[in-house]
């Protein structure tokens, strides 16, 4: 019986090999992000990654939705600026950015990688992108993921603002929200009732997702009544 079970488990692991393929890991598990929304249709974002090892050349991703644009990004480790290069082969809405590798003797465990950029937003529901490493963050000790703290603050001039998604808790201040996640969110959506109108429609191909989903949902919607009608005709 024990041997049989061992055999099943070995087979199970063999079957699941595809699932265990590990993604690239970014060497940080403590991240602080502060988003400050200003009145003039701008938001400043500062990200701090407490490094646990030299990061090497890293790829980063920006989710740029309609009505949003990101100004040039400043990156530094230990007060030393890093070269930031935007990948020209970008695929909207994702833009890929490469950070040059900091010298090995100048970046490692204990250093902080800082990213800073300004986002220009319009519309009453603004999507503020967060520049995120194109890799899974290291897990904090004893946790299922990293510890990512995000603060959203709104200037006094911005009225009736609130965070729509992800879920944030309001802090003691009515103009500040805070949340903690296991991974870096791609964006923060904020409601700005006084914002200028903007067409949020997306251009680009959805890769057939809409018609596939329609056929899928339609198949299920038809199947249920057809089945009940067919088997309901027969009396016991």
């Amino acid at each position: 019986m024990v041997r049989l079970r061992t055999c099943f488990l070995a087979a199970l692991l063999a079957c699941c090999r595809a699932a265990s393929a590990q993604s690239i890991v970014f060497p940080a598990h403590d991240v602080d992000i502060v988003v400050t929304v200003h009145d003039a249709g701008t938001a400043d974002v500062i990200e701090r990654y407490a490094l646990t090892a030299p990061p090497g050349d890293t790829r980063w991703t920006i989710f740029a939705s309609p009505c949003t644009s990101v100004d040039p990004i400043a990156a530094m480790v230990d007060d030393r600026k890093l070269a930031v290069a935007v990948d020209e082969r970008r695929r909207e809405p994702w833009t890929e950015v490469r950070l040059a590798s900091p010298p090995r003797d100048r970046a490692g465990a204990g250093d902080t990688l800082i990213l800073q950029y300004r986002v220009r937003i319009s519309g009453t529901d603004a999507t503020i992108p967060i520049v995120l490493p194109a890799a899974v963050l290291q897990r904090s000790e004893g946790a299922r993921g990293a510890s990512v703290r995000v603060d959203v603050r709104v200037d006094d001039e911005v009225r009736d603002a609130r965070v729509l998604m992800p879920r944030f808790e309001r802090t003691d201040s009515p103009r500040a929200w805070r949340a903690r996640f296991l991974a870096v969110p791609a964006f923060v959506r904020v409601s700005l009732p006084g914002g200028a109108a903007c067409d949020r429609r997306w251009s680009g191909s959805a890769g057939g997702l809409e018609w596939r989903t329609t056929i899928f949902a339609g198949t299920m919607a038809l199947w249920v009544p057809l089945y009940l009608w067919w088997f309901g005709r027969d009396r016991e």
Partner: protein
Amino acid sequence: MIGNDLRIFWAAIAAYMALVVAIGAWSYRRASKEEGFLVAGRSLGPVIGGATLMANQVSAGATIGIVGFHYFSGFSYAWSWPLTWIGWVVCALFVAPKIRRHPGLTLPDYFAARYESKAARAVSAVFILVAYSVMLSAQYQAGGLLFTLVSGISYGRAVLLVAGITTAYTALGGMYSNAYVGLFKAVLLLAGYVLAVPFLWREMGGLHAIGVALYALDPRLTQNWFGWRQLLSISMAIGLGLAAAPYEISAIYSMQSRRATQLAIGWSFFFQAFVGVGVLVFGLSLRVAMPFLPDPDLGTPMLGTSLLPFWIGLLVLVAAVVTFTRTGGAILLTAASAVSHDLYGKLLVPDASDRAKVAAGRIATVLFSAIPVLLAFAHLSLVNFIVIYAAKLMVSFLFVPVVLGLNWQGATRDGALASMLGGVATCVAWSLLGHPYLIGLDSAEAGVLVSAALFFAVSARTRPVGRETLRVFFPPSAQRVRSL
């Protein structure tokens, strides 16, 4: 979750537990006889029966595992729902009407009666214990992940908590409890998903926006991450496995009549359709909102704690808790019945009283619950991969002797035994060889083919089953079939 939110979450779990205990206590008296405990006194109608069938099928594999599958592989896995339903139609046409003619309580009862074989009863009961240990570990693992992420308690404690909740209500109420908690689960899933899907749809900018983002991330996410070949083999393993799954057979034995069973399958489709669309939107939205999660199985807990508004998120989280404890309960009940009814009551102590068998069932429920806890601690793989593998084992072992045995009079005891053992051995060996499609066949397909070949070849050369026995499953006239 922290502070007040966490307190509300625990209060909701406590309320669910109180409801389960109340249902269990109410069921306890109705379940004092073995037929009450194992098959709810054969009293379930189409709607509660449909909720029961859905609640058995829609396990942590769906509410946690399939959300994770959509997260990492995109749209294509959605087709597994309608493809799996083909297995249910096979059940409605070729299994449910025939198996209802036999007044059994468990699947091993059917094997013993159809093949006049104590050995078939014993082998199937032992197999159920092994395969369901794997299946139950997936429920505990999913529960462990959810409670760890939501409340911050350690994974080990979380697994024990889930095992405790599941064991408590199953031991108390048996199938009555499972049926009514199943209805509760269906309502909760419907409510949670009906509220969550429109919210995500709106905040993510609609299906087109999600599609544009996913297609740019990886074109396979909106198209065919899984090819038709893979989808067919996975869906057939799950669907055809369901047609002969021990817990679904127990649920079929619990229905009022053949017609109630067939209509219940239709109602289960109704509930599953909502779940299918819901988990699809959940997985795809989360992939855009948080593209680099450390573990796809964290998708549903992340949605509940970080993406959805608090009350909708709470509903989705509690629905997930109900899902894995309820399906865990059905698995536990089936495994416990294999011990108490088949091994203890029929083979070891055939003259045991009804009361002794129910007591044995409750003790077996508690004892059996411990084995999958150890497997869940090992955290074998993604939840849905574990569920799929358990389904492959089951279809290789059970499909041929159940479905063909109910529809072909020439099947013999030796044919059934050879088919069960040969099928599952082939499936395991195929998986160990490590090639997903050796000579073009998936492990479950190879298992079913070998199982069928042995079934026919051995049956043709061995002593047939007696006519009186066959008359139960193959009545002489259609008129008589209807009167039964």
